[in-house]
C-alpha cells in the first residue's frame, strides 16, 4: 500500500510539472496578457502607410512604452490607414500637439509607433486624434529616392566640373 501511495504522489507531481510547464509557456514566452485590459484612454491616428505595423505593437515616447495598438482599419473616404491605440492611464500628460511616427525596431525588427512630444500646455484626452503623423518608411521608396538623388548629384557635379 505504501508503494501505491508513493505512485499516486509521483503521478500528482508529474501532472503538476506538466501544468507548470504549460503555464510557463503561456506567461513567459508570449506577449499576450491573459485578460484584456480595458483601462486607459484611446487615441486615433491616420497614416498614409503603416508598413508592417500590427495590432499589439507598442506605442512609445522617448523609448518608454505608453500603450499598445488595439485596432487597425482602412479609411475608405480618404484612403488612409486608421490606427487606434490605447494609452495607459498613468500617462495622461501628453501634449496634444505631439506627433506619431512609425519606426522599426532594429534593422529588421517589428514596427512600432513612436511619439515625439510637442510644446502644448493642453493634453490629449480619450477619443482625441493625433493630427501630425508620419508614415512608415518603405524600403523600396527609400532606395528609389536614394538612386534619384545620387543620379542628380552626379549630373550636377558633372555640370560644375569643367568650370
Amino acid at each position, binding site marked *: 500500500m505504501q508503494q*501505491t501511495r508513493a*505512485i*499516486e504522489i*509521483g*503521478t500528482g*507531481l*508529474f*501532472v503538476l*510539472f*506538466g*501544468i507548470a*510547464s*504549460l503555464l*510557463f*509557456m*503561456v506567461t*513567459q*514566452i*508570449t*506577449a*499576450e496578457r491573459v485578460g484584456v485590459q480595458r483601462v486607459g484612454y484611446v487615441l486615433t491616428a491616420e497614416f498614409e502607410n503603416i508598413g508592417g505595423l500590427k495590432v*499589439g505593437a507598442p506605442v512609445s515616447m522617448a523609448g518608454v512604452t505608453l500603450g499598445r495598438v488595439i485596432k487597425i482599419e482602412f479609411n475608405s473616404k480618404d484612403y488612409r490607414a486608421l490606427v487606434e491605440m490605447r494609452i495607459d492611464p498613468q500617462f495622461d500628460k501628453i501634449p496634444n500637439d505631439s506627433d506619431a511616427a512609425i519606426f522599426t525596431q*532594429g*534593422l*529588421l*525588427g*517589428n514596427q512600432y509607433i513612436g511619439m515625439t512630444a510637442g510644446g502644448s500646455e493642453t493634453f490629449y484626452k480619450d477619443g482625441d486624434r493625433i493630427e501630425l503623423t508620419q508614415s512608415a518608411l518603405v524600403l523600396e521608396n527609400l532606395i528609389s529616392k536614394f538612386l534619384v538623388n545620387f543620379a542628380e548629384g552626379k549630373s550636377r557635379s558633372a555640370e560644375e566640373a569643367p568650370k
Partner: protein
Amino acid sequence: MITLLRELWRSTREALVQLGRVFLFFLQLLAFTPAALMRMRLIVHQIFNAGALSLVIIMTCGLFVGMVLGLLGYDLLSRVGSEEVLGAGAALALTKQLGPVMTALLFAGRAGTALASEIGLMRATDQLSAMQMMAVDPVRRVVLPRFLGGVVAMPCLTAIFISIGIFGVQLVGIQQVGIDSGSFWSQMRSAVELDDIREGMVKGCVFGVACSLIAVYEGYNSLPTAEGVGRATTRTVVISSVATLLLNFMLTAFML
C-alpha cells in the same frame, strides 16, 4: 507484373482492414471510459508508468534539442546579422513542431513499447485468458487504464519538453554565445502567440491518443508467443512514428 499489382492490392486491403479494426477498438475504449473513471487508482498508476517514468528521457532530449536549436539558430542567423531573433525562431520551432513531434516519437519508443510488451506478455502467458475465465473483461481491466494513462501523460510531456527546450536555447544563446538576455526574451515574447501554444498542445493531445492507441492495440492483438510480443513492440514503434508524422502534416496544414 500482375503478381506485383496483386500483392500491392492485397497489402492495401490488409492495411484498410487493420485501420478499421484499430478504429473500432478505439471506439470500444471510448465507450468504456466513463465507467473506468470510477476506478481512478488503476488510471493513476498507468499515468505514472507512461508519464513520470518517461520524464528522464523527455527532459534530457528536450534539453539537448533546445541547445542544438540554439547553436543552429545562432549559426544561421549570425550570417544575416539577426541574432536577436534566435529566441523567437527557436521558440516557435519548438512549440509548433519539434516539441510535439519529438515527444511523440520518444514516447512511442519508451512508453509505447512498454505498453505493448506488457499487454503482449500478458496475452502470451495466458493472463488475459485467465481474466476472461474469471469473468473479468481484460479490455476494461488492463487495456483501458493503460490507454488513458498514455493519453493524459502525453500533453504533459509535450509541455515539459517544450519548456526544457526553451531553457536549453537560452542556455546556449544567453550564457554561451552572449545574446542580450533582454532582447532575447522580448523578441520571443512578441513573436510567439497563444495560438502557437495552442497548436503545439493540440498536437500533443492528438499524438498522445494515436500513439497510446497503437501501443495497446498491438499488444492486445499480438500472437501469444515470445516472437509475437517482439513483433508487436517493433510494429508499435514503426506505426506510431509514421502516424505521428502523418498527423503532424495534416494538423499543421489544417491549423495554418
